[in-house]
C-alpha cells in the first residue's frame, strides 16, 4: 500500500466523519442536558431534504416573490447553497422543538418521541421531494452554486511538492467543503462552552441533577430547550452537509443510520467533546475502508467481501453499545423528565 492510497483513505475518512461528528456533537448537547435524542437520524434526514430542495429551487428560480412581493433582492444576498443550509437548520430545529414539546413540556418518553420523529422524517422527506420534483422522492442533481465547493487552503500549492507534509496538507487537510472545517471547529467550541462557561456548567448540571439546578433558582425547562435548539442546529448542518457537500442532492434514506452511529460514537466518547472527535474519526475511517476494498485486500492479503466492509461501522456500533468499551456512565438524569418534587 503506497502513501497516496493512505492519503486517499484519510481524505475519505475526514469527509465521512464530518456528518458523524456534527450529529455526535448534536447528541452530546442534548444528552448532556438530560434529554436522550434518538432522533438525530430523522433531523439529519429532514435537514438534508430541506437543504437540497431549497438549494435546488433557489438555483433554478430566476427570482423570488411571495404574495406578489418582489424578493429577488433577498435571494441574491446569499448563494443558493447557503439558503439551503438555512432551510436545513430550520427543518432540523423544528424537529428538535417537537421533541422538546413532547419530552420536556409534556414529560413524554424521550425514546418514543425520538423514534416517532425518525419515522416521520423517513416518510415526510420522500413525500415532499416527490411532491416538489416528481423524481421518485429524490431531488435533482445539484451543481454549481447549489453545492458547497471545496476550499483550497492557503499554501496548498506552494508546499505540495514537499515530501510527506506537502501531499498530506494538499490531499487530506485542504480541499474540503467549508462545513468540514466548521464541524472540526465546533469541537473546541463545544468543549469551551461546556467546561469554561456558566451556561455549560448549568447545562451539565441539568443533565446530572435537575433538582440541583431548580433549587438554585434556574429554569430547568429553558436550559433543556436551549440545548435542544443547539442539537437542532448541529443536526441541520450535518444534514445540509450530506446533501449539498458530501453528495449532490437528496435521496431516499440517504443518512443510512448515521444518526445511530453518531449515538454509538457518543457513548464510545463517554459524552466528552474531544473524545467525540476521535471516535467519529474512527467510525469515519471504517466507512472509508468500505469505499476502498482494494486497500483492504492489499493489507490483509485476501479479498474481504464488500458487504462485510460495508457493515463494519455498524458492527463496531453494536460492539460499542454492547459495552465493549468499559464503563460509560451516561448523564445521570438522562431520559428522565423532570418533575418538581417536595
Amino acid at each position, binding site marked *: 500500500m503506497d502513501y497516496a492510497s493512505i492519503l486517499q483513505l484519510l481524505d475519505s475518512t475526514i469527509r465521512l466523519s464530518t456528518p458523524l461528528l456534527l450529529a455526535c456533537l448534536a447528541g452530546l448537547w442534548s444528552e448532556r442536558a438530560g434529554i436522550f435524542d434518538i432522533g438525530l437520524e430523522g433531523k439529519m434526514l429532514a435537514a438534508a431534504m430541506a437543504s437540497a430542495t431549497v438549494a435546488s429551487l433557489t438555483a433554478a428560480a430566476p427570482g423570488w416573490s411571495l404574495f406578489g412581493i418582489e424578493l429577488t433582492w433577498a435571494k441574491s444576498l446569499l448563494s443558493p447553497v447557503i439558503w439551503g443550509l438555512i432551510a436545513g437548520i430550520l427543518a432540523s430545529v423544528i424537529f428538535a422543538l417537537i421533541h422538546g414539546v413532547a419530552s420536556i413540556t409534556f414529560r413524554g418518553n424521550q425514546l418514543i418521541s425520538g423514534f416517532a420523529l425518525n419515522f416521520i422524517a423517513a416518510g415526510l422527506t420522500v413525500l415532499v421531494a416527490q411532491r416538489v420534483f416528481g423524481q421518485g422522492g429524490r431531488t435533482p442533481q445539484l451543481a454549481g452554486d447549489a453545492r458547497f465547493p471545496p476550499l483550497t487552503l492557503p499554501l496548498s500549492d506552494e508546499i505540495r511538492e514537499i515530501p510527506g507534509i506537502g501531499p498530506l496538507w494538499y490531499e487530506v487537510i485542504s480541499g474540503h467543503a467549508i462545513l468540514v472545517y466548521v464541524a472540526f471547529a465546533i469541537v473546541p467550541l463545544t468543549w469551551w462552552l461546556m*467546561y*469554561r*462557561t*456558566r*451556561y*455549560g*456548567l*448549568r447545562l*451539565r*448540571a441539568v443533565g*446530572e*441533577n435537575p*433538582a*440541583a*439546578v*431548580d*433549587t*438554585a*433558582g*434556574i429554569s430547568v425547562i429553558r436550559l433543556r430547550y436551549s440545548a435542544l435548539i443547539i442539537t437542532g442546529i448541529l443536526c441541520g448542518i450535518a444534514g445540509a452537509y450530506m446533501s449539498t457537500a458530501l453528495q449532490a442532492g437528496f435521496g431516499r434514506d440517504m443518512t443510512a443510520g448515521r444518526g445511530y452511529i453518531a449515538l454509538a460514537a457518543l457513548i464510545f466518547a463517554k459524552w466528552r467533546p474531544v473524545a467525540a472527535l476521535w471516535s467519529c474519526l474512527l467510525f469515519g475511517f471504517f466507512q472509508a475502508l468500505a469505499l476502498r476494498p482494494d486497500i483492504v485486500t492489499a493489507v490483509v492479503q485476501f479479498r474481504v467481501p464488500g458487504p462485510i466492509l460495508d457493515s463494519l461501522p455498524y458492527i463496531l456500533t453494536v460492539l460499542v453499545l454492547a459495552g465493549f468499551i468499559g464503563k460509560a*456512565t451516561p448523564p*445521570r438524569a438522562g431520559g428522565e423528565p423532570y418533575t*418538581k418534587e*417536595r
Partner: protein
Amino acid sequence: MTTDVTGRKAGGPGGINPPASFAHAAAPTPAAPTPAAPVPAAIELRGISKSFGPVRANEDISFFVPKGTIHGIIGENGAGKSTLMSILYGFYRADQGEIVIHGRPAALPDSQAAIRAGIGMVFQHFKLVQNFTVLENIILGAEDGPRLARSLARARKTLADLSREYELEVDPDALVEDLSVGHQQRVEILKALYRDADILILDEPTGVLTPAEADHLFRILRGLRDQGKTILLITHKLREIMEVTDNVSVMRRGRLIDTVATAKTSPAALAELMVGRKVLLNVGKSPATPGETVLSVENLSLSDEQKVERLRSVSLTLRRGEILGIAGVAGNGQSELLSILGGMTRPGEKVSGHVTMGGQPLPITGKAANGKARREAGIAHVPEDRHHHGLILDFTAWENVALGYDDDPRYGRGMLLDNGALREDAARKMQTWDVRPPIHTLAAKNFSGGNQQKIVLAREIEQDPTVLLIGQPTRGVDIGAIEFIHKQIVALRDQGKAILLVSVELDEIMSLSDRIAVMFDGRIMDILDPAQTDEAAIGSLMAGIHPAEGRPAGETPPATSGEA
C-alpha cells in the same frame, strides 16, 4: 441562656396550650423572663395554611423565630413540617397567611426570591451534582458572570474563609461523589452560606449521618448561631431537639401544637405532644388467651445502604391469640422490623439474627426471603405504606384483592387466570369487609383511604394466615372505618391468630395491644403490659428514657393538659 422568647407564656412541661390560642399568640412581645431588649424576629409566620386538594397539609400555622437562635420543628412524618419549609423556600405558595422576614413581609414566589431574602435550605436529599467538584456545586446558580474562571476563583477564596470560620472543612476540588454523606451535607451548608443566607433551614439533617457526623453538625450549627445566623431544624428525633435547639415547635397533623423553650420541656413531654391522642373509641375486648409461640425473633439487626444501624439486636416472641403492639416515634426501627418479617428487605441492607416460625427457621436474607415465601409460611402482611406496597392504585379492586394470591389453584385454570372466580371472590370479600362502594371493577385509587385499607385487610386476612403483620392500620382512615378495622383485628386475635401491630398512634397501641413493645433508636426499650402502664411511661420509653433513670412512675405525667 435559653429564654422563652416565643412571645407567649409557655408553661413548661404540663403547660401546653390548646392550639386555638395560637393565631394571635405569636405577637413579638417577649414574655416575662426575657432579657431587657426585645429580640428581633428573623422569621415570623402568621396564619399559614396550605391544602393539596382535600388534604390540609398546613393549617393556620403561626410562629416566631428570634434572630440568632436555633429553632426546632418536630413532628411525625406527614405532620406538615416539610410542606411548611417548602413554603418558606418558595417551592409552594401558601393559600393563606403571611411570612415576615426580618420584620418585612416577604412574598416568596420561587426559590430565587427565598435566596434573595437570605434563606438557605439544606434538603433531606441533597441537591448536589455528583460528578461536579465542590466548588462547581457551590457556584452553580450563583456565578459571577458568563465565564467560569472568575467565579471559581472568588468561590475558592470565600470557601476558604467560610471553612475556617465555621469548622466546615471540605476539599474544594474533590468530586462530590467521592465525599462522605457528612461532607456532602457540609457542601450544602456552604452553598447556602455562599449565597449569603442568614436563615438556614435544615430538613431532617441527621437522617443520613453517623452519630459522630451528627455531633460535628451540631457544633457547626452552634457556631453559625453564635455568628448571628438563625437556624430552623426540622426533625422527628427528640435527642437532636434537646441537644441543639433553643426553642421548639411541635407539629401534628398539619397544625402547630405548641412552641416552647427547649430548656423548659422534656423529651417525654415532646413525645406525647408529637404523637398526640385522639378521642378513642373504646374497643370492647376481652382479655387475651395467648397460646403457644408461633413467631420468635432473636437478635435481629439491620444496617441500611448508608451503613446506619436501623435495628439493633431486636428480640421478641409472638404467641397465638395475642396482639403485640410496637409503639414508638416513626423512624425508630419499626418499619425495618416489619419489612424483614414481611420479606421486603432492600438490596444493600445488611440483616443478621434469627427468626423462627412454628419452630422452623425463617430465611431473613437472600432470595428465599420474599413476600411469596412469607405468604406460603402463613404470614400475611398489611404494609405501612398501602399506596406503594399494599395496592396498585391504577388496578381495579378485584385485581388488587387477587394480588399475591393469584397463583392459588382456586383462581386458575392451568396457566390461565380464572377472572370470573377472582371477581366473584373479590366481590364476596368486599361485602364481608363492608368496602364502600362495593364495586369490584372500580380502580383502587377511587376508594377512600379507609376503604382502600379494607381492601388490603380483606386480601390478607381472608387467606387465613397464622401470623398477621399490620403496619399503621388506620393511617389516613376515617373514624368510622377505624372502629370497624379495630374490631376486626380483635376478632382475628380471638380466632387464635398471632398479630404484630405497628402504629405511631399511641392510643391505637394502648387500646388494641395485649403486650406493648416500645422501640427507640432500633432497640426494644421494654415490653409492657398495657394494664400495668400509662401513656406517660410509654412516652418516656419512646423518647429513649427508662423510667427508672428518668422520672419515677406515679409522678405527675408531663403535658397531660392536652386531654382537657
